Every structure is written in C-alpha cells, then in structure tokens.
C-alpha cells in the first residue's frame, strides 16, 4: 500500500475521534463523492486550541492525517495552528504515497477552516485565513493496474 508505519499506526489507533458538541469552530472539507470528507472541531481558550477532534470518512491517508493534525494542533495558539501545512502533517507521518498528498491530506485544510469560522464569529475576520474552495480532486495513485 505504500503507507508508512506512522500512517498505519494513526489509522489503526486514531487520536481525538469525535465531535465537540459546543465547538467554537468547525471546518469541513472534502467531498463524499470523491471518497474523502474531513470535519475538524475546535475548542478555543485564550487563543489556544484547548481541544481538537475530528470525524473523517476516507482512506487510510485521510484518517491518519486527520488524526495527526488534531494531535499536533492541540495546545497550539491559533496563529501557530494556522502555520501548520499539509506538508508538516505528512512529514510528521513519515510521508504519504504519491497522489495521497493532494487528494486525502485534508486535515490541515479542515483545521484552518475551523479556525477561520471561530475568528469570524469573534469579529476578527482580518486575522482569518482565506476560505478554501471546495476540492474536486480525485485520488490518482500510481499506474492503473486492474486485476480481474
């Protein structure tokens, strides 16, 4: 499958699964038609991410990157969390297979959207990151070999 041990470990034992009922911000990215849908929930205290949870439908990469981003973001300030990139998450998981970087590595995007929602609610729109367009990517990985 080409997944690192860390990806498989997070996939097998995902951290911070669930919703935060009274979340301060929710980021929703992906498209079920393309096979990956990531929701990230945040609870903010004094501009620090006090709690971060996720719900994800998707492949192993989507679940592992969702899990990892929640783990990385917890305890970060909002501005620190906004600096987290897809690459940071992938690197922390010892990399992702080609193609999965683009189509299933949505955790950081969802986190940024959740923070954006929070900042807008707080009237701090100027600090909010730009909205992320709906992604229409398909998973394209390797050569199209199809066993019978």
């Amino acid at each position, binding site marked *: *499958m*080409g997944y690192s041990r860390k990806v*498989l470990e997070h*996939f*097998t034992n*995902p951290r911070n*699964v669930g919703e935060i009922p009274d979340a301060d911000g929710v980021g*929703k990215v992906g498209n*079920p*038609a*393309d*096979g*990956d*849908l*990531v*929701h990230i929930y945040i609870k903010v205290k004094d501009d620090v991410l006090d709690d971060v949870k*996720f*719900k*994800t*439908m*998707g*492949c*192993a*990469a*989507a*679940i592992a990157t969702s899990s990892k981003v929640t783990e990385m973001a917890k305890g970060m300030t909002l501005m620190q969390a906004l600096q987290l990139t897809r690459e940071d998450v992938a690197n922390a998981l010892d990399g992702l*297979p080609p193609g999965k970087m683009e*189509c*299933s590595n949505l955790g950081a995007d969802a986190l940024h959207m959740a923070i954006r929602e929070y900042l807008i609610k707080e009237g701090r729109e100027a600090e909010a990151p730009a909205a992320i367009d709906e992604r229409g990517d*398909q*998973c*394209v*990985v*390797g*050569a*199209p*070999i*199809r*066993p*019978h």
Partner: protein
Amino acid sequence: MTYFDNSATTNVDPRVLEAMKPFFLERYGNPSSLHSLGRSAEEAMTASREKVARAINSNSSEVVFTGGGTEADNMALQGYVFANRKRGNHIITTRIEHHAILNTCEFLEREGFRVTYLPVDEFGLVDPEKVKEAVTRETLIVSVMAANNEIGTIEPVRAIAEIAHDKGAVMHTDAVQSITKVRTDVVKEHIDMLSMSGHKFHAPKGIGALYLKTGVKIRPLVYGGGQERGLRSSTENIPGIVGTGKAIELSMAEFDDDVQKMTRMRDRMIKGVLSTISDSHLNGHPTERLCNNAHFRFDGVEGESLLIYLDQQGFCVSTGSACSSRSTGPSHVLSALGLQREQMHGSLRASLSKFNTMEEIDRFLEVAPSVVKKLREMSPMYDAKVC
C-alpha cells in the same frame, strides 16, 4: 491469513504444483525440439490441450495457449477484427467488461473501428434485446463477458451469441472468472472464441488460453517461430500449460462438490453480512451470480479503509473504491449499475475458492460488523445519513 480475493488470483493447487515440477527439473525440453526431451514436453502439452478442450466441449485443435487472459482477450478482439476488416468495422461490447477488453476497444476505435458499449441493468445484466438493437451486418464481433469480475453477475451469453450469429457476427466471451465455476459448453452456447486464465483456477500465473472455433480466422498478435499453429509464436510455457491442464482437469472432476461448497459459503456470507450490518447492500445479481462472489457496499464508509482494517484482522479482500492504491477512479462496473459515487466508495468484494472453509466465513462474520462500526463511528457521513 484468510484469503478472500480469489477473483484477483488463486493459490496454486499443491497437486498442480506436483504435476508441474518435472517440467522444470526433468522434462524441460523445448517442445519444438526433435529429441526425446522435446518430444516429452510436446506430449505433455498435447495432453494438457486435450484437458482444456474437454472442459469446454471443444476440440484440442481449437485451443491456443497464451500468456494469460488479457492476451487471450486481445488475440480474440484484435486478431479477429484486423483479419476481417473488409467485412465490417463494428464491435459490440459492454460497459462492464474487464479493461483487457475495454482498453483494447479504445485502441481499436483509434484504429478506425466503431464500438458500441452496451449498458447493463442495476444488477449488471446485459439485456439481449439491447444487443439486437445494436447489431448490424457491419458488426464483426460481439464480446460479452461470461461473468463479471467485480460483482459476479453471470451474463446470458447463449442468447447474445444467437443474436450475433443472426447478423453474421462472431461471439467472443471473456470467461476468465467463470471457467471452473460455471459449466461451459462452447457448442451449446454458440461461442466462437472464449478467453480463460490459469491463475484464476489454481494454475500458475502467466498462462491462459483462447478457444478459437474451427474456421474462425484471426491475425496473430505475436510473430516468430510459428508456435501454436502460427497464431502465437514464442516457446511454449510448458510448466504453465501442464499446470493449467492439471488444474482444469481437477476442477472438472470435482466441479459439483466445489461449486456446492463455494455456493454454501457465499450464501452464508451474504446472509450474515446483510443481517448483521445495518445499511449494507449486495451488489450484483441476487441469483445469477458466480458461486464464489459476494460484493457488498456499506453506507458511510470508504473501501480502502475497510480493506486495510480487514487486512489487519487477517482477511484479504478487495474494493472498488477510488482510493484503492492502484486505481484511478471508482469502479466502472459499479458506475454502470447506476450507483452514486459515494455509494461506490464503500464497496467490498469477497471472492472465495474451494480452499476456503465455513469456519473462515464465520470468523469474517464475527469481525466485519465491528470493522464497519469502527469506521462509521469516525464517519461524518454516517451520522448525517447523507448516503
């Protein structure tokens, strides 16, 4: 590890391996050689050809050994249309064929042939009436698979062949999945060309065969020393051919027992999954399906995740999800059934063999509900009941 991916490939039957061994170590002659080792190899090849022919009620002179099912499909399609181009330029096939057929058809379209891709119904069945509407005097060949490799639906090949013949077209069927699972009689079913692949029925990989009815003219794909009556040059893969002969001979001798066993296991799996996992569905035809195929979809989960979790629990299965490691998009077969893309993503194929056991099915039925549950607990789709 429990292996439920027998539509992808099967283990080599130990009896087949034993039959092959001498042809690696002792009887390794080239069948084209005149000396005794060469003759010994040729005799073994002839015997295997007869076994293959007997299994489909053909003559041994009508069996051409190939490098696999894909090559047999290519040989049939390309070989026939290029050899008979003066007679017409139309090909009929279906939207759910294996890519060995579909990609060959795309190539032939680029070569100036016209291809009609027939739709299927929600169960994956091709309606012979659709063939009747599409076939003309310009139609050279109708190629419809005997059974679908993903969802297991068995197609009405005989009815389609009769319609093809009425307009002067030949009938080819990709029987890679159905050979040894469905009784096959090329005479009764009016089949002119039939593809098979050894590794789908416990022979090794790298060996296949094309049944080519006497009188059907094809152009070779491979030129060289003139082996296989000039239709497929290349030194014959004698161990593979011997293995194929042995495997098909065993399968025919044990056909009823094997099919009954696989049918019982399949039915137990289908009944068990549908009754214990909510919002699960069976893809493919409820009755007209291969005895070894169970194809499900589960609302709110994604197939690759399902596959890896099941792998971690000791089960090898496959999925038609876009995110399976080597595919470029959701399954064209599931798409042809009219499923929504989000439905296709949660698909799972379990394909059985005669070597599986009821205990393995029961263990799968114990594990699968918890795996689906775990993924659904993580899924925002399932809570929302969007799918």
